[in-house]
């Protein structure tokens, strides 16, 4: 069982190190889809490995993998009263502590994910209800709702009944071609449910609010999702239209915030818009097939190895 603990710990640490490296790597901009896949595997693999390592410490040396070992330990604990002299009490206490920690970590992760899902659904429901009351259709923006506000905003409200919303300020800011590019970008978000990709990382930020890696991960995935939608929009519209739309948004957002509260939101995402504009105007070649396969294999290993160790003895 010690080998299992070692492997799982190694996977968990690799996931954290990998996340740190991936957050500052340059290649994800060339292949957002591959990078997003790797991010999901890092998150899931880390969760499985961390819970598994703690559980494996609690598991009795059994030839059945982590899950079987934990069950064997639990079975022993029940029968312990009849046979108290089998194991030093300190070791038993250590095992119990590890088991409690493993269960607590698993519960925390599940609970936070559920809480974030519930909060997001609640926010969206209220937002959608308000949009029904406040927004109007506009022939200039087919398929989108228009909100009468002078600031520039364009966003989508994902969900089963999704909405694409732009502000009246956006209608003034962009020419029709740029607007079409922005709408194509938002439609890509809605169609491919990019919000679901981001959700686990929002949950991780909630679970570990003091941890810098989770915030860097969430930020990186958010940017990659935008890049992916940029790429989808570029299939339908010239990249140039989307790039100028982005530049106009960036300039308008910083120079004319409609209220004091909005001006204070520039903390995150340093250089994100610039990075997106640059890769639209100067497209980089995508990843070679070999690198793609490498990324997919790494993702697979990160998830399959810890998952397998739950049932396969080592």
């Amino acid at each position, binding site marked *: 069982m010690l080998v299992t603990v070692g492997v799982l710990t190694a996977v968990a640490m690799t996931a954290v190190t990998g996340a740190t490296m991936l957050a500052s790597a340059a290649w994800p901009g060339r292949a957002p889809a591959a990078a997003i896949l790797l991010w999901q595997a890092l998150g899931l693999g880390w969760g499985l490995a961390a819970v598994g390592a703690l559980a494996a410490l609690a598991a009795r040396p059994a030839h059945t993998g982590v899950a079987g070992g934990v069950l064997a330990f639990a079975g022993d604990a029940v029968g312990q009263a009849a046979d108290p002299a089998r194991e030093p009490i300190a070791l038993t206490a250590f095992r119990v502590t590890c088991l409690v920690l493993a269960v607590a970590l698993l519960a925390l992760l599940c609970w936070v994910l559920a809480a974030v899902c519930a909060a997001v659904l609640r926010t969206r429901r209220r937002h959608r209800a308000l949009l029904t009351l406040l927004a109007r259709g506009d022939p200039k923006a087919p398929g989108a709702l228009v909100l009468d506000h002078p600031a520039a905003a364009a966003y*989508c409200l994902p969900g089963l009944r999704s909405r694409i919303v732009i502000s009246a300020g956006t209608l003034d800011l962009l020419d029709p071609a740029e607007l079409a590019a922005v709408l194509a970008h938002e439609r890509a978000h809605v169609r491919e449910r990019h919000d679901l990709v981001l959700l686990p990382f929002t949950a991780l930020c909630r679970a570990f609010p003091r941890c810098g890696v989770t915030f860097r991960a969430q930020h990186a995935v958010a940017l990659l999702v935008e890049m992916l939608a940029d790429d989808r929009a570029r299939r339908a519209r010239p990249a140039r239209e989307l790039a100028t739309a982005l530049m106009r948004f960036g300039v308008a957002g910083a120079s004319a915030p409609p209220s004091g509260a909005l001006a204070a939101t520039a903390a995150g995402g340093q250089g994100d818009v610039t990075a997106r504009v640059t890769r639209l105007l100067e497209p980089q070649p995508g990843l070679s097939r070999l690198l793609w396969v490498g990324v997919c294999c790494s993702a697979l290993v990160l998830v399959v190895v810890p998952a397998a160790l739950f049932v396969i003895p080592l």
Partner: protein
Amino acid sequence: MDVLWDTASPLTVREVSERLAERELAHTTVMTVLDRLAKKGFAQRERDGRAWQYRPAASREAYVTELMLSALDQAGDRQAALASFARSVTDSEARALRSALEAFEDRPGD
């Protein structure tokens, strides 16, 4: 809801119906809609004799601002409930973008 927003004083169901006369809505329909708005917290109601009087819980502008804030407040503790086209940028980035945009517009159509 527009009727409530456009009137300063609280309105009864009948008064709302009268203001929506051209839509030819049934009295019960208006009542149901107002009841639903009150349940969702967008309208507040109080008893005035036998009838309920409704007024908006907040102004139209306040709600628009709320939506725009959640749309633009993408930094910090964001919930990922929405996906904004572009996040807010810093002043220095905005300056760089502006000069890039100007340079770009000087050489159109390449």
